[in-house]
C-alpha cells in the first residue's frame, strides 16, 4: 500500500521513539532492585520492540516481512 510523505515521516519518528523506549527499558530493568518493577519494565521493553517490528513491516515494500523474533534489533533476554 502506497505511503504518503506524512506517513513516512511519522513512521520514522515512531521507529525512533520505540527504539529508544526498548533500549531504555532493557537498561532500567537490569538496574532495578524490586523484582516486580524489574519484570514490569522488562515487559514494557518487549512490547516496544514488538511495536518496532510492526512499524518496520510497513516500510518493507519488497514483500518480505521479517519475523518479530529475528533481526539485529533483538536485545538479549534478561539474565534471571
Amino acid at each position, binding site marked *: 500500500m*502506497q*505511503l504518503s510523505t506524512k506517513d513516512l515521516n511519522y513512521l520514522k519518528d*515512531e521507529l525512533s521513539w520505540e527504539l529508544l*523506549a526498548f533500549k531504555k527499558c532493557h537498561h532500567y530493568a537490569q538496574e*532495578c532492585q*524490586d523484582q516486580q*518493577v524489574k519484570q514490569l519494565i522488562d515487559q*514494557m521493553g518487549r512490547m516496544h520492540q514488538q511495536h518496532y517490528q*510492526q512499524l518496520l513491516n*510497513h516500510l518493507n515494500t519488497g514483500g518480505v516481512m521479517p519475523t518479530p523474533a529475528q533481526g539485529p534489533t533483538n536485545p538479549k533476554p534478561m539474565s534471571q
Partner: protein
Amino acid sequence: MQQQNNQAQNQQQATPQHSTGLPQVKGPEMNDRDRINDVLAMEKYMTTAYNIAVNEASTDPLYQTQMSILTNLHRAQRDLYNAMSAKGWYKTDPADVQKVNQAFQQFNNYHTQFPYS
C-alpha cells in the same frame, strides 16, 4: 528531603499510600521509583505523539497498526500507574467533597438545556 524521610520513619504508618522499597536516605543516583516514573513519563509522551499520527494516517492498515500500538501504550501507562500506586509511589490528592457536590448541583441544573429527551 531529609526531613520527609525522618517524618516517614517517625510515623511508621501502614496506610496504602505509604512508600515501600525505597532507600531511607536518597542519594543522587536513580532508584526504582525514578526508573518507573521515567518509563511512565515516556509512555505518556508517546501516547500523545501517536494520537496525532493516528489522526493523520492515510491508509487503513497503517491506521490500524498505529491504533493498536496506541491502545497498548495506554494499557502500559495504566499498568505502570497501578504498580506505582500500590507501592505508594504515586500519591493523589482527594478533591473536597463539598466542592464536588457544588459542581454536581451546578451541572445537574443544566438539564433544562438538553435538546434530546
